[in-house]
């Protein structure tokens, strides 16, 4: 199901486009006829009041939900019902609104789990820890240690994640997504529940990932300050409908947005 290796997508081209997508749950219309695109290399924010359909949109992009209507094109390939692990294989990684870590594992193992698709060796070799499997394990550990250094979580790498404070859990979750070396990284409220300092750290990481690895980012965030600072373009949803799309400055001065979103205290 991996998208065929067509011409490489270069910076500024459209990486993902959402065309007239609608999704409903029984009678509830979560998303109605929304279209927008995400360009290679940009940080794209998705904002809107509670229940606007933001998380549902991410779930559509990474294959958890299948819209009843509309077309999703990723790397030039229109796709129908893509399952989440196929989306991951195609280069889409994500974090979750409420941290979704593997609670029984250490931080290191959580991040290693992000390498699942990159590890090819046969499990019998892995069990015996000999031959090519050992070399492969070492190579992956090396990549994972780089990520751990980047996120500055060296001291907690052996700690079971359930014992970590929330802010660090979010960081481990980011590490797991980075371990996948994704082309498109989806964040669902990466800074919810964090204090100012933690928010600044997380903002820094997001910018660094975008700049150093050239990873395209889609970001859901309620903190308008963060959105204005980080994003190149912003799409605004309200009650499942797109009400604005543009640069942070444009969106900020858009009357519909002010009415629907900025007027609401958060």
């Amino acid at each position, binding site marked *: 199901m991996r998208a065929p290796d067509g011409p490489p997508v270069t910076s500024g081209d459209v990486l993902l486009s959402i065309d007239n997508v609608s999704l409903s749950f029984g009678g509830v219309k979560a998303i109605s006829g929304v279209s927008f695109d995400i360009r290679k290399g940009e940080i794209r924010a998705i904002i809107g009041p509670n229940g606007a359909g933001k998380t549902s949109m991410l779930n559509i992009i*990474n294959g958890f939900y299948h819209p009843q209507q509309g077309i999703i094109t990723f790397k030039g390939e229109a796709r129908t019902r893509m399952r989440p692990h196929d989306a991951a294989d195609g280069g889409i990684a994500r974090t979750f609104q409420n941290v*979704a*870590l593997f*609670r029984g594992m250490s931080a290191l193992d959580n991040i290693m*789990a992000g390498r*699942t698709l990159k590890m090819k060796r046969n499990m019998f070799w892995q*069990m015996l820890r000999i031959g090519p499997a050992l070399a492969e394990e070492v190579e992956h550990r090396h990549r994972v240690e780089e990520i751990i250094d980047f996120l500055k979580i060296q001291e907690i790498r052996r700690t079971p994640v359930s014992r970590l404070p929330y802010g660090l859990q979010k960081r481990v979750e980011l590490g797991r997504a980075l371990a996948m070396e994704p082309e498109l990284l989806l964040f669902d409220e990466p800074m919810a529940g964090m204090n100012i300092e933690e928010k600044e750290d997380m903002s820094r990481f997001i910018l660094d990932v975008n700049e150093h690895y050239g990873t395209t980012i889609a970001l859901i965030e309620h903190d308008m300050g963060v959105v204005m600072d980080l994003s190149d373009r912003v799409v605004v949803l309200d009650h499942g409908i797109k009400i604005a799309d543009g640069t942070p400055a444009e969106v900020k001065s858009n009357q519909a947005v002010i009415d629907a979103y900025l007027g609401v205290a958060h």
Partner: protein
Amino acid sequence: MILFGQFLEVLVSGLLAGVLYSLVALGFVLIFKASGVFNFAQGAMVLLAGLALVRSLDMMVANGLPFWAAIMLALLFAALVMAITAFMVERFVLGPLINQDGLTLFMSTIGVTFIIEGGAQMLFGSDVYPLRLFPSDAWFLFEDSFPGGILVSKIDVWGGLIAAVLVVGLALFFQKTKTGRALRAVADDHAAAQSVGISLNWIWFIVWLVAGLVALVAATVWGTKLGVQFSITFLALKALPVLIIGGFTSVPGAIVGGLIVGAGEKLAEAYLGPFIGGGIEYWFAYVLALVVLMARPQGLFGERIIERI
């Protein structure tokens, strides 16, 4: 001294029998942890594995294959049968039922039980088939210290050894391989596991395959002990108290629970039997489970109260 010798003998035979309960319980735990499915079919899988093993073995021996080669081939064949079963269960039963609640899945495994039991007997026959993989005589240990020594059945010792190897193998598989890590990931969080590229369908196949291989191991030992026959499926009923005692989600719990039940029922039979009548073995495990259930509903090793079934 005679009394202590007797006690040791009963204890050892109880523990070794308990290992076999652990094996069956282990199959349950693996599936329950990874998919939240209470797999009613585990006992049927032991029957299927045993029948596939003994019938193919008999056939090959009858056709003049050397015994050791026949054993190898028969084990391979039985493993293949379990793999096919895992594939079909995933493909036709659990795959289509993805996202259904625990009770629905539990009911579906009851259906699977009947299909496996029926299919196994249709394909391989429904008699009692003796299996002779291990010597069935006994050792007499410590004859110097205890008059007559302690009787230890060789089958039980083999069973214990094989179970130990299996547990070490499973531990390596879970801790050291990417598939093992993926299994733990799925057990912890389905959505997050999928998001890193783990296919639930693939994992469920693997889980049922592993449970099938565990069933095969249990079948080699139980089959040698009792002959491969339908009553082997009742083993699954013994696994239930083991699970309640050990906890549904704990691999060490399954092992310890099995040992407790095995040793407990043999000791109770030997020491309480004379006072309250025999046959204690048949109900002791359930009473023990009831006591645990009242004192510690999640089991000795369980993480939390099971709300899934």
